[in-house]
């Protein structure tokens, strides 16, 4: 509090002056914040939007999906953002917070899908993984003779004889990343079920009812080894890449677009025999992917100039379409883009979550 006491009298006139000045001129450029996964796509669209339209280039900020949605829900008006990028779906708690602050009309726009890929050093061995392999390599407990035992696998070949006899070392996204959620659900849970461990966890659970047991089983499936073979990376993909560079035997988890821009350094692993690509992900053959969204504060349409135009431009075929600029960068186009475009044109607000 000393800070406040000390500085408040000195800056009070400045604040008053500044507040008067802002009240005079309303914001004329869009403000966007949120997911760092969506950030590159949003900057590409913002750049093209600024070049080709008579509106200023929107200001795009990262900060993470949750932080972006929270900012969106701070209220309505000049000083709050217009669009929140999100790599996971909005939560009921966000919607409640929004409603509490007067943000009652939110448009949900799905821009496409993001593939999550496993990749290793370009000169390393080939990996043909399945979710069960990944789970078997990283899980704290694994299945042996129909019982759960502590995971002692040292090399990938211990997990699956067809994999390279190379020590297991993986760099996976840390728990603060939206990517981790997808990794947990689409890889670990699936792998756990495929390996038959899910039923064992379910049987071993002491939960009160079926729901609690299922929760226990999933927690068991997604509990990872703590002996250093699975390393959480809290930074971004560039950090994972530099870690791979230092540990040539390691396998890292990346977003498809990051891999596509670093194909000269990374070798991608197949999943269930499918090579990840924009095509295999949009056809649904490659299993590990997630939708990307942004959320628009509809109450700002018509208030902040260019908001609707920007959203329309974002989901246009030229940008988000199969041959658009975003697919070129690694976004997996949404097969139902036409429906999204229609919803944006009609300014349809999102339905309650089910």
């Amino acid at each position, binding site marked *: 509090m000393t800070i406040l006491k000390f500085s408040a009298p000195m*800056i009070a006139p400045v604040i008053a002056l*500044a507040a008067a000045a*802002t009240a005079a001129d309303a914001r004329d450029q869009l403000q966007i914040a949120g997911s760092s996964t969506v950030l590159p796509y949003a900057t590409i669209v913002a750049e093209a939007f600024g070049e080709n339209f008579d509106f200023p280039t929107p200001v795009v*900020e990262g900060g993470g999906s949750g932080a972006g949605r929270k900012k969106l829900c701070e209220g309505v008006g000049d000083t709050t953002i217009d669009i929140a990028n999100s790599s996971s779906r909005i939560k009921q708690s966000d919607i409640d917070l929004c409603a509490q602050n007067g943000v009652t009309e939110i448009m949900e726009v799905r821009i496409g899908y993001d593939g999550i890929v496993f990749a290793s050093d370009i000169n390393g061995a080939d990996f043909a993984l399945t979710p069960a392999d990944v789970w078997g390599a990283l899980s704290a407990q694994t299945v042996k003779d129909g019982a759960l035992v502590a995971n002692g696998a040292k090399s990938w070949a211990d997990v699956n004889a067809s994999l390279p006899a190379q020590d297991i070392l993986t760099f996976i996204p840390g728990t603060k990343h939206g990517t981790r959620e997808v990794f947990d659900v689409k890889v670990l849970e699936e792998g756990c079920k495929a390996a038959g461990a899910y039923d064992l966890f379910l049987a071993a659970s002491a939960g009160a009812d079926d729901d609690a047991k299922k929760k226990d089983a999933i927690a068991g499936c997604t509990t990872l080894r703590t002996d250093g073979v699975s390393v959480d990376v809290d930074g971004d993909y560039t950090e994972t890449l530099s870690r791979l560079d230092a540990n040539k035997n390691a396998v890292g988890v990346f977003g498809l677009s990051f891999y596509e821009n670093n194909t*000269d350094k990374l070798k991608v692993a197949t999943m269930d025999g499918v090579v990840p690509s924009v095509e295999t992900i949009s056809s649904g053959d490659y299993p590990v992917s997630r939708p990307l969204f942004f959320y628009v504060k509809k109450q700002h349409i018509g208030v902040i100039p260019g908001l609707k135009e920007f959203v329309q431009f974002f989901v246009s075929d030229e940008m988000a379409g199969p041959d658009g600029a975003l697919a070129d960068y690694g976004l997996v186009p949404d097969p139902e883009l036409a429906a999204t475009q229609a919803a944006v044109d009609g300014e349809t607000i999102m339905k309650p979550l089910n």
Partner: protein
Amino acid sequence: MSGRSLFAKDARTAARNRAERRFRAFGFSAILLALLALVWLLVSILTAGAPAFRQTFLTFPVTLEAKLLDKSGIADPAALSKVTTTTYGKLLAKALEAEIAARGIEAGDMKSKDFAKMLSEESAATLRNMVLADPSLIGQTITFRALASGRIDGYYKGRVTMESAALDKNVSPAQLALAERLKEAGVLTITFNPGFLTMPDASDKRPEAAGLGIAIVGSFLMMAVVLVLSLPIGVAASVYLEEFAPRNRWTDLIEVNIANLAAVPSIVYGILGLAIFINFAGLPQSAPIVGGLVLTLMTLPRIIIPTRAALKAVPPSIRDAALGVGASKLQTVFHHVLPLAMPGILTGMIIGLAQALGETAPLLLIGMVAFVRDFPGGFFDPAAALPVQVYNWTTRGDPGFVERASGAIIVLLAFLILMNAVAIFLRRKFERRW
């Protein structure tokens, strides 16, 4: 007294001398280690960042066909602005292809999409802006200098090789081979790139076009705010505390707090700025005014401390003499003490500003880390800042941003060295010893 000569060292003297030699050796190796670390840092930054100041360009004639760019034929500005960069991009790729054919350069089996991929997307936007600014260009053939794409540029900076290109989906060895032939023909040139200092940031698709323009302007605006606010406030606070304030518990408390505030981690000021200036006062996000205010808060104690030291260094005899000939307290301070303390105050001010210039953490919290493409028109428009731009670029996916980040560090270091040099100059030139 024993009869030993002073010149014959006894065991204890020898031991003391050895201890001294050992200490000197430790000290010397500590200095050496520090120097080596500095040299290593500078060499790595300079080698990584120097390429950012050079850029690969392709210069070739472009015919601005009216049937593509101005279908109406009357150069109506509204109609002209409907023509998007996509059209201009295709036009540029076609012109490059035509130039290669005209010069008889072997292009292999490249498709027009492959030619387009050799050019930066930024070039299309530049050309479009040229045409919109001067519609009379339509129909003419102009010589246009286009930015080469990041991968072609990377080839000449050692980032991309023929081997890596074979594995890279964004560039092919055929394109690199063609680039080599274009270089021989003089179409492709590598020159100093002023754009790195003047152009705005660019998206992940065009690292070759990313520049520090907005970051430099943003940092400059913030420094202006810091200077205008913290110089008068800091000096007034110091003069009052040093010359006028009574010595009691309250001033002691304030003094201790100023010393403590100077040591508060800068991120704390970011949180404070977010709460006061943005959430409470309603100032805009990402604006230099907020950045400047936050940095002012951070810099104030760091300016007050050296300013008070400078005031203290003025000998009491000066004050006594002034008071003795009948000057008031105010006249004493403003006519005699303050001018004599000015060199020290300015030095402290400049070093405080230099610290503020390099500060990143508080700016992250107030939205200065945003992607901004339009130059700020004033203190309330969104802008970036130099140190934050470094952070921003290191998180980008395209390898082309690595050299940009190091280049930005060089620019930042250059500014800091310049400011410190001014501080040293002022101190040397005006410093007085009593």
